[in-house]
């Protein structure tokens, strides 16, 4: 059992590393289209988001619809840090690393203060409150103005002019226009390292005593409570770690964009990540990685369909869900391909 788990984990690391080496060498030799090149960092961002959301939805079994909110907090705090430190730290890699730490810490803090009240709720009520928090974060960041001049930082929630800055002042966060001119520090390598760190944290957590406690709570909260597992503590831990990883991913995302606005992190982004998790298989980390990659590339691959692109995408999505989950279809698959599948499974063992 333990050996099998180790093998699956090694397979996950192996696939990610192999994919990185292939893509990187393709990029270096210039045989990658500019479209695909532009997708490399977003793919890394979405993989980290999907894996971190899987920790909450798949491993701890709580439906969260506000993951984009944590990404938003991480993106803004990380980009803010980078803009402030632009002249102090000149090495792009170091600056990005520190910005990610800042983004992750701030997002973790938000995860903690949101998690404490939210995790008292159950099921769909929890889902709607995470949705609400995501919207609140987006809305509030939309009206924040921060500027800097000789006297230090100025803060306002009204508009750019009420910051009251000296003429040489610089606006850092400009309300709905967001942050412009974040140094473009994000690289594919940085994304790859972030994925490895994320996988390391999440896979080790799942295989640890804490992870088993979290899954016990998911399977039966009452039974877990009765054997002395501290439900709130473990759920909060899961939620906070997930938020921190989403924050780091958000920072990476911000350093890949010229303009960062809060409206990008809306409900649809949260849903998009949730789709990765559900299609990849809940609790299945490798599944999340693959689903995030395929579903980020797929809409771009369908570009030749022009206006029909999202239509086809939505039909594929519905069809995949029915194919994977419908009891009738599963039974039909078992009847027709059952022998094949069973043989596959035997070989895998």
């Amino acid at each position, binding site marked *: 059992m333990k050996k099998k788990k180790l093998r699956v984990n090694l397979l996950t690391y192996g696939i990610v590393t192999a994919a990185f080496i292939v893509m990187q060498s393709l990029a270096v030799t210039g045989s990658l289209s500019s479209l695909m090149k532009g997708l490399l960092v977003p793919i890394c961002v979405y993989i980290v988001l999907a894996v971190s959301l899987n920790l909450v*939805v798949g491993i701890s079994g709580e*439906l969260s619809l506000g993951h984009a909110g944590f990404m938003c907090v991480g993106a803004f705090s990380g980009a803010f840090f980078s803009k402030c430190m632009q002249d102090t730290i000149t090495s792009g890699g170091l600056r990005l690393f520190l910005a990610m730490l800042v983004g992750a810490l701030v997002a973790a803090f938000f995860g903690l203060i949101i998690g404490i*009240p939210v995790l*008292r*709720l*159950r099921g*769909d*009520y929890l*889902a*709607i*409150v995470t*949705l*609400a*928090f995501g*919207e*609140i974060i987006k*809305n*509030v960041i*939309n*009206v924040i103005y921060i500027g800097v001049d000789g006297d230090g930082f100025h803060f306002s929630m009204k508009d750019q002019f009420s910051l009251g800055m000296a003429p040489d002042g610089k606006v850092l966060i400009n309300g*709905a226009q967001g942050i412009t001119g974040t140094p473009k520090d994000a690289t594919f390598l940085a994304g790859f390292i972030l994925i490895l760190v994320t996988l390391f944290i999440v896979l080790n957590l799942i295989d640890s005593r804490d992870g088993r406690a979290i899954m016990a709570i998911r399977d039966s909260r*009452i039974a877990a409570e009765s054997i002395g597992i501290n439900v709130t503590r473990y759920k909060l831990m899961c939620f906070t770690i997930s938020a921190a990883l989403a924050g780091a991913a958000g920072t990476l995302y911000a350093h890949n964009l010229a303009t960062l606005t809060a409206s990008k992190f809306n*409900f649809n982004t949260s*849903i998009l990540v*949730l*789709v990765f998790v*559900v*299609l990849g298989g*809940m609790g299945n980390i490798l599944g999340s990685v693959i689903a995030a990659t395929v579903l980020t590339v797929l809409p771009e691959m369908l570009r030749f369909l022009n*206006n*029909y692109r*999202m*239509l086809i*995408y*939505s*039909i594929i*999505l*519905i069809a995949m*869900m*029915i194919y*994977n*989950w*419908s*009891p*009738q*279809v599963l039974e039909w698959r078992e009847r027709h391909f059952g022998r094949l599948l069973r043989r596959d499974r035997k070989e895998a063992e």
Partner: protein
Amino acid sequence: MSFLSYLLNGISLGSVYAIIALGYTMVYGIAKMLNFAHGDVIMVGAYVAFTAIMSAGFSSLPAVLLAILVCTVLGVVIETIAYRPLLEASSSLAVLITAIGVSYFLQNVVLLIFGANPKSFQSVVHFKGISLAGGALTISGETIVTILCGILVMVVLTTFIGHTKQGQAMLAVSEDKGAAQLMGINVNGTIALTFAIGSGLAAIAGVLLCSCYPVLTPYTGSMPGIKAFTAAVFGGIGSIPGAFLGGLILGVIEILAKAYISSQLSDAIVFAVLIIVLLVKPTGLLGKKTREKV
């Protein structure tokens, strides 16, 4: 006086939310699923009425009736094709994601047919508002009609559920599907009926919403959809009076927050109130408290 006028606007917007929330809550009560495509059915309803009035030269009432008919059929078709295969799936998230797929689908079909440019919706209400207190307080015709529609829908729906066989069947199915089937109730038919009613209501809500706020795009439905979903949870999801109450309160809070605090932060305030209410009453205002059994 301005407060009174804001309040009336709030009740009017709240009535629209309430009508949408009724659809959410009925579907949730009976199928235990969050139908995220509901907001887009609203949008489809509004587009049908828009086309009927602008291109086919329908007058208001037939256009609204046509929109209701189209949405009712659409609701049943969606339920049969996309949701029914998944209602018994081992994970309740499967049907949620499918609903999101349906939502993208509807948005993109409308996008292909009508384009992304916003359409300006012509109000279906043709009488002028009334002016009270020597012109200090004017109430628009849309506000009056919306509020009246909200009350009418609530009364008809409560009567339908409390006093007809189909209504009783819906209650039975929402309480216990297996037992309802044993009593000879057609469970699949009842679920389809629920979707039909919910989608019909969505069409009404779409027309009313666009009469008050006359900008129509393929994404018009999504934000009111999310807000109405919030309203349904606010009132206690699965509870019909709860959805109505939740919708009204949410609409009033939104308009008052826009008027007195900040128009940019009004959504944040609405959601903050929701969170506070849920923390005090974890199953919503009128939600049933279920005891957990081991």
